[in-house]
C-alpha cells in the first residue's frame, strides 16, 4: 500500500488519528480498493470508529503495490489489516494544525512482507521526516484475517463499516444535526464527566450530564443543554426517547466533524441500543462511529419513552413507520430490562455486540414477518420522499456517483459501486482528457438528478462543482472554504513551482544530516536533503505532467 496525502489534507488525516486515538489504543489500517480505512474499537468493545479516505483524498493512492506481498482478493473479507498503536501514530500527527502549515506531503507506505509501516513527512525547507516502526509484531501486525471478528461485515446490506452486523432495523429514530451547533456540548460539561444523556422529543433535544452512577446524585451539579429542532438541518424523531452514551468519544466525534465541516448524522433507536454518528463527503471521506448506550434506565424514565409521539412529524410519508417505531421501542425496552435482570445492575457498559446480534428472526417483532420486512427495508419505494432511504444509507459513498438504478438489488449495486470506484481510481492516474471525460460522466450520473436525500442537497450547498476539477481538488474546495480552495485549485502550479525550485538549489552545498532519536516506538530519522529528497517524490510530483 502506498499513498500520498497532500499537505492541505493532512490536518484532516491527523485529526482523524487524534479522534480515533480517543476511542481505542490501537488503530487498524486497512487499504481497500475504495480507499484507506482507519478503524478502531475500544477495549470494552462499546465504541467503534471507522473512517474511510477514498482515493480522491490522496494525491496518489495505491491499495496494493506490486511486490508488497498483499493478497489480491477484492473482497473486503480477505483484505488484510494492520494494527498500529494509536500512541505511536499520535507522535507523527502531534499537532495537526502545524502539520498543515509545515508539511507539503505525507507518504504512507506499507511493506507487508517486512511488516513495516513508513510515514514520510516532506516538510518545508527540504526536510524529510521519516517515521518507521520497529518491525515488531506488537507494534505492527499484518493480519491476514480480521482480529476484530465483530468488525467483519455481516452482509452487504449492512451499513458500510458497521461492526457487529448492526442493522438499523425498523423504527429507527433519525436526526441529522449540523455538528457546529453541538460544539457547545463538548465544552460545557465538566472535563471529568463521563456520560451524557440525550433526550429527544419532537419539540426539543436536550443533553444532560449522566449522574445516576454518582454516589449522591443530589449533590452533583446537573447540567442541561436544550436545543430547538431548528438547530438541526433535519430533525426527525419517531418516538420520545433518551440515550446515554460516553462523552469522551462523543467529543472526539464532534471535534472531528467540526474539522471536516460536514453535517453530522445521528441515528439511534432507543435506550440501550447503539447510537450511530456518521458524516460523509461525496467521494472523499466518510466516517461512521458507533457508541453503546446505557441500558439500565430507571422505570420512571422508560415509561415516558414508550409513548409514541404523534405530533409534529415533519414528514408526511413517514406516518406508516410510526407504528413499527413504537413497537420497536417497546421491544427494545423489554429487551434491555431483560438484560438488566440477567446481567445485574452493576454492569453499565454492556457491549453492544450482544444486543445487536439478535437477529430479527428471534421474534422480537411481535407483528410477524410482514412487519419485519417492513422494518428492514422501509423506504424502498421512497425515491422521491424525504424519508432518509435506508438503502441509500447502506450504500458505500461511491454509490452516490454510480449510475445505478434505484431498484437495483443491493448485491449488484455494491458490485457496480466497486467497479465504479476502480474507474475513479484509475482516473486519477489517467491523462487529463480521460479524467475530464470521467469527471463529466460522474457529474452527469443519474444520482445527481435524483437528489432525493437531504444529505446530498446539503453537500450541494456546501460546494459547487467546478468543471475539470479532479477529485482531490473537489475535496479541498469543500473543506477549506473558498479562499483556500482557490489556493488549492492552483495546487498543480504550486507543485510545479516546488519541482522547479528544487533545481536551482542543487548548486548549493549538500547538507545531509541524520538524527536518530530514541523514541520508544518509532525511531525518528530526520534527513535533511536538498536535492535528494525527491527521487521518489519528484516522480509523484510529476506523475500528472
Amino acid at each position, binding site marked *: 500500500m502506498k499513498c500520498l496525502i497532500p499537505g492541505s489534507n493532512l490536518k484532516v488525516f491527523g485529526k482523524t488519528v487524534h479522534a480515533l486515538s480517543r476511542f481505542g489504543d490501537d488503530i487498524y489500517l486497512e487499504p481497500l480498493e475504495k480507499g484507506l480505512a482507519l478503524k478502531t474499537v475500544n477495549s470494552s468493545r462499546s465504541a467503534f470508529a471507522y473512517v474511510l479516505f477514498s482515493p480522491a483524498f490522496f494525491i496518489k493512492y495505491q491499495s496494493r503495490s506490486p511486490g508488497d506481498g498483499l493478497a489480491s482478493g477484492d473482497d473486503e473479507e480477505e483484505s488484510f489489516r494492520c494494527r498500529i498503536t494509536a500512541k505511536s501514530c499520535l507522535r507523527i500527527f502531534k499537532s495537526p494544525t502545524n502539520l498543515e502549515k509545515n508539511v507539503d506531503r505525507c507518504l504512507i507506505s506499507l511493506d507487508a512482507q517486512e511488516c513495516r509501516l513508513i510515514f514520510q513527512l516532506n516538510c518545508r525547507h527540504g526536510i524529510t521526516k521519516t517515521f518507521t516502526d520497529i518491525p515488531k509484531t506488537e507494534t505492527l501486525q499484518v493480519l491476514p484475517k480480521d482480529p476484530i471478528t465483530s468488525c467483519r461485515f455481516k452482509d452487504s446490506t449492512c451499513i458500510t463499516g458497521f461492526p457487529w452486523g448492526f442493522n438499523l432495523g425498523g423504527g429507527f429514530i433519525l436526526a441529522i444535526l*449540523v455538528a*457546529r*451547533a453541538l460544539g*457547545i456540548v463538548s*465544552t*460545557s460539561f*465538566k472535563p471529568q464527566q463521563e456520560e451524557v444523556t440525550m433526550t429527544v422529543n419532537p419539540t426539543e433535544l436536550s443533553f444532560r450530564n449522566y449522574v445516576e452512577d454518582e454516589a449522591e*446524585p*443530589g*449533590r*452533583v*451539579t*446537573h*447540567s*442541561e*443543554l*436544550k*436545543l*430547538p429542532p*431548528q*438547530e438541526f438541518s433535519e430533525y426527525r424523531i419517531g418516538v420520545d426517547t433518551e440515550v446515554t452514551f460516553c462523552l469522551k468519544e462523543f467529543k472526539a466525534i464532534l471535534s472531528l466533524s467540526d474539522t471536516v465541516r460536514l453535517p453530522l448524522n445521528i441515528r439511534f433507536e432507543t435506550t440501550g441500543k447503539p447510537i450511530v454518528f456518521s458524516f460523509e463527503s461525496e467521494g472523499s471521506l466518510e466516517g461512521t462511529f458507533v457508541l453503546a448506550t446505557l441500558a439500565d434506565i430507571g422505570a420512571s424514565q422508560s415509561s415516558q419513552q414508550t409513548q409514541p409521539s404523534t405530533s409534529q412529524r415533519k414528514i408526511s410519508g413517514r406516518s406508516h413507520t410510526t407504528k413499527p417505531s413504537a413497537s420497536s421501542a417497546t421491544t427494545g425496552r423489554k429487551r434491555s430490562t431483560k438484560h438488566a435482570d440477567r446481567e445485574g445492575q452493576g454492569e453499565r457498559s454492556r457491549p453492544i455486540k450482544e444486543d445487536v446480534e439478535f437477529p430479527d428472526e428471534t421474534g422480537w417483532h411481535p407483528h410477524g414477518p410482514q412487519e419485519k420486512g417492513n422494518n428492514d427495508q422501509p423506504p424502498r419505494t421512497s425515491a422521491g420522499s424525504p424519508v432518509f432511504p435506508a438503502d441509500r444509507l447502506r450504500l458505500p459513498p461511491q454509490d452516490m456517483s454510480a449510475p445505478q438504478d434505484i431498484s437495483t438489488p443491493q448485491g449488484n449495486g455494491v458490485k457496480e459501486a466497486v467497479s465504479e470506484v476502480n474507474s475513479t481510481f484509475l482516473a486519477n492516474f489517467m491523462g487529463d482528457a480521460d479524467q475530464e471525460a470521467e469527471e463529466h460522466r460522474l457529474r452527469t450520473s443519474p444520482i445527481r438528478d435524483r437528489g432525493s436525500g437531504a444529505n446530498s442537497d446539503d453537500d450541494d450547498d456546501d460546494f459547487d462543482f467546478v468543471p475539470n476539477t479532479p477529485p482531490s481538488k473537489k475535496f479541498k474546495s469543500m473543506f477549506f472554504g473558498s479562499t483556500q480552495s482557490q489556493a488549492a485549485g492552483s495546487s498543480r502550479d504550486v507543485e510545479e513551482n516546488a519541482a522547479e525550485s528544487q533545481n536551482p538549489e542543487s548548486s548549493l552545498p549538500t547538507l545531509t544530516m541524520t538524527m536518530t532519536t530514541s523514541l520508544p516506538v518509532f525511531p525518528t530519522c530526520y534527513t535533511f536533503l536538498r536535492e535528494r529528497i525527491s527521487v521518489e517524490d519528484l516522480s509523484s510530483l510529476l506523475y500528472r505532467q
Partner: protein
Amino acid sequence: MKFRAKTEEISNIEQLIRVCGSIGKMTQLCVLRISEQNMFFILNDKVVHGGVWCQMNPDNFFEEYRMEGLSEESNEIYLEVSPDEIVQALKTGTYAAKTLKVKLTKKSSPCLTFEIELPSQSGRIQTFIHDVPVNVLPKRLWSDYKEPLVPQFDISVAMPPLKSLKSVTERLKNLGSYMELSANHNGDMRMRVETEQATVSVNFKDLEIVHVDNGSSQSQPQNRMMGRFYGAKVDIKNLLMFLSGQLVNPSRIICNIMENRAIHCFLIQEDVSIQYCMPVINN
C-alpha cells in the same frame, strides 16, 4: 426564601467568574450570604485555610436583583455552595451569552440554577441550565458567619503588585514551607524564609503605609520605632494560594499585620472587596 438575579452583560459574567474563581482557589466549600444590599462569599476557617470575607455589590453584577429572605426581620439567605461548581456553570456563558439568570430553586434538593442563553450559529437560542446543589443554612448557624472583627493592627502596608509578589513567593516556596512576612513604618516589606543552610529575605521598599483611623490608635505610631519590623509567620502555600487565586485585578491590596498574631489582606476593587485572614504559625 426567594432569590433571582439576571444580567445581560458578558463583562458581568466574566467578573463573576473571576470572583468565584478567586474564592474557589482558596476553598472548596464556602457560604454565600445573600442580603438585600450585598452578596458575600464567606469562609469561616481560622486554622487551615484562613478566613475569607468577600463582599460584592449586586448592582454591579446584575441588572435585576430580587431576593426575599427567611423572614422580614432576618431578610437574608445563607447557602453553602462550592465556588468551583459555580465557575464551571458560568463558564458556559463566557463565549457569547445573551443572558444569565440565577435562581434559587427547589428541585430534588435545593439548587442554585444558572440559566444561560446562548445565541447559536443559526441565530436561535440555546439554553443551558446548570443546577448547582446547595445547602440552605438554618438560622441558628448564621452567627458563625459574621463579618470578622478587625483587630488593632501593628502595621498596615499597601502591598506591591500581585504579579511580583507571586513570582517571588513561588521561588521562596522551593526553599522552605514557612515564611515570615513583616513590614515597618518606613515602608519596607520583607519576606523571609529560613532554612538550615540559608536565610533568604526579599525586601520591597517605599511602600505606602496606610494609617487606619480608629480613634484611640492615633498616638500609637509615634511611640513605635520607625525601623522596627512587625511580622508573622505563615505557610507559604496559603499565601501562594491567596496570591495565585486572585483573578480579579485589585486596585489596592492592603496587608495588615499584627505581630505574631494575624496577617490580614484586604483587596479593594470597585465592585468587590475580599478580605483574607491568613492563619499564622506560632513557634
